[in-house]
């Protein structure tokens, strides 16, 4: 899935010797400018490290929380084929979370610490998952729009300057592209189905369109840190550039589906050769980001309750592993005696 607020920075490094750090930073930037990959053991500015930890962990959390709205339909998928595809898709999201947590761990933070940040509410995840999946069409809309927007954001990250993140994204993007196609196929089936199914698809588009285009984050004018992330080649395109690209690609798809996009101001602009769209309700975006979305509470509670309910299971696995190790040691000592 996708992470937003890419542009929030950590603390600045405390230089032991300012000149030394400045020289190292200059060498670091030169490597990035030369399109070299930065690897875990390489020197990096603390702010680069913190930015990546925050971005990759938010991305991982988004995958894990993103399992919930779609998982909501696994037991009710309307055919066995749809059920199998949905299980595989939600499983993929979990797998993405796992690679991303691993990529973040190379920067010196543990999965347990990242989980703690998610469960305490300190870490963010993509706001899109704070919207409910009310009908089966929402599963289609998530694949088509949400995964579609995610791909738009993520393909440039395959060229991110940080090696482990870039490599994780290659596989993730391949899977997301499959997810996007299955979502579109669900929408197509509904849009060409009965009147009730068509209405279900239209209703899902009505509810998911604006949140999807908000996924690209604040407009460039309000996005203060984009420039630094671009210099570091963590980010390659601005929020507005990506959003425009998504709209340009998606509007013709909606027309093909014979569904209407809920934006009365949407029109083709001959001068720019782009679709021009109406104003985004940034109040809604910020409200959801701050926790007042329709399902913020449910999503976090579901994660917390799974974590708490599973504590005794994880403790059992740890205790059993310790017993096994102790037994192996005892039998080794007995053999040596």
């Amino acid at each position, binding site marked *: 899935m996708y992470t937003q607020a890419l542009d929030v920075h950590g603390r600045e490094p405390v230089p032991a010797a300012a000149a030394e750090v400045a020289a190292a930073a200059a060498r670091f930037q030169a490597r990035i400018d030369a399109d070299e990959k930065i690897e875990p053991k390489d020197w990096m500015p603390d702010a680069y490290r913190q930015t990546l930890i925050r971005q990759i962990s938010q991305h991982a959390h988004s995958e894990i929380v993103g399992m919930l709205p779609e998982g909501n339909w696994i037991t009710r998928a309307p055919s066995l084929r749809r059920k199998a595809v949905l299980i595989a898709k939600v499983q993929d999201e979990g797998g993405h979370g796992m690679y991303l947590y691993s990529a973040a761990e190379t920067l010196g933070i543990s999965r347990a610490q990242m989980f703690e940040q998610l469960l305490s509410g300190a870490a963010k995840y993509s706001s899109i998952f704070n919207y409910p999946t009310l009908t089966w069409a929402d599963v289609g809309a998530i694949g088509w729009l949400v995964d579609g927007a995610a791909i738009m954001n993520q393909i440039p990250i395959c060229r991110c300057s940080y090696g482990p993140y870039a490599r994780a994204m290659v596989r993730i993007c391949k899977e997301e592209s499959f997810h996007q196609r299955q979502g579109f196929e669900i929408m197509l*089936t509904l849009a060409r189905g009965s009147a*009730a199914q068509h209405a279900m698809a239209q209703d899902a588009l009505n509810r998911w369109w604006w949140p999807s285009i908000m996924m690209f984050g604040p407009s460039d004018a309000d996005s203060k840190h984009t420039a630094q992330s671009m210099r570091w080649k963590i980010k390659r395109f601005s929020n507005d550039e990506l959003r425009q690209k998504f709209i340009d690609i998606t509007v013709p798809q909606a027309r093909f589906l014979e569904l209407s996009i809920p934006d009365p101001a949407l029109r083709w602009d001959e001068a720019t050769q782009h679709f021009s769209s109406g104003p985004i309700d940034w109040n809604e975006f910020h409200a959801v980001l701050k926790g007042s979305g329709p399902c913020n509470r449910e999503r976090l509670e579901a994660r917390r309750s799974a974590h708490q309910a599973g504590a005794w299971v994880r403790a059992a696995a740890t205790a*059993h592993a310790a017993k096994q190790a102790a037994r192996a040691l005892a039998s080794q000592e007995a053999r040596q005696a």
Partner: protein
Amino acid sequence: MSAPAAAPARGDRALGEALFPYVLRLADTSLVLGQRLGEWIGHAPALEEDLGLANLALDLIGQARLLLTYAGEIEGRGRDEDALAYLRDAPEFRNLALAEQPNGDFAHTIVRQWLIDGWQLEVYEGLTGSADMRLAAIAAKALKETRYHYRFSSGWLLRLGDGTAESQARAQQALDSLWRFTEELFAPDEIDERMAEAGIAPRLGAAAGRWERRIGQELRTATLTLPERRPHPWYGKCGVHTEHLGHLLGEMQHLQRTYPGVSW
């Protein structure tokens, strides 16, 4: 099991009538258990278990699809996998009653899985030599999956039993609660007998001993105790289900029932 080379079932109408419910038993057990495991996804004790349980669910739904499609062909009334999964009511389902039991805590899920995996190992292994080539092919695929499932469930049974005092108590409680649904696993009825006589299915009586030895040994290693009695002999495979199945189907079948006759 010694198996003749060709399937005798198609030519023998009475045998065909027994084959349909027999295949449904296998199909419905996989379907209902897969449906239950689907409830876990996103809520498991650790990310690895979310992925593991999803794998099991996927395999089981895959088995159900192959088996239901075959059952529909045997029946010959034009019902496909979805018609059989979504448009039958609880008394027409032929799954083991154990499969429909709620997930409960992770220990209940693991014990239920481990008991059914052990049953499927025996049944699928026997079916790989079936006189019915289609069933033999499905069983060969399912057997590979079931071996992996069994490693997963028996591995967790051991961790829970030989883990902490709490996990041991929970695993024992799950076993005490679920054991009463195991009566039907290896107790052959008329359909099982007919399938065995025709060389289509393995003899359950012979498999019972192997299963009991296997689970007895694993329970000892996991420091768990086999309950003595099986108080009420539930027979899901004959359509005698617990209250839980109706709710499971109500959820699973909701869209197909609300919007009849459309494609999804």
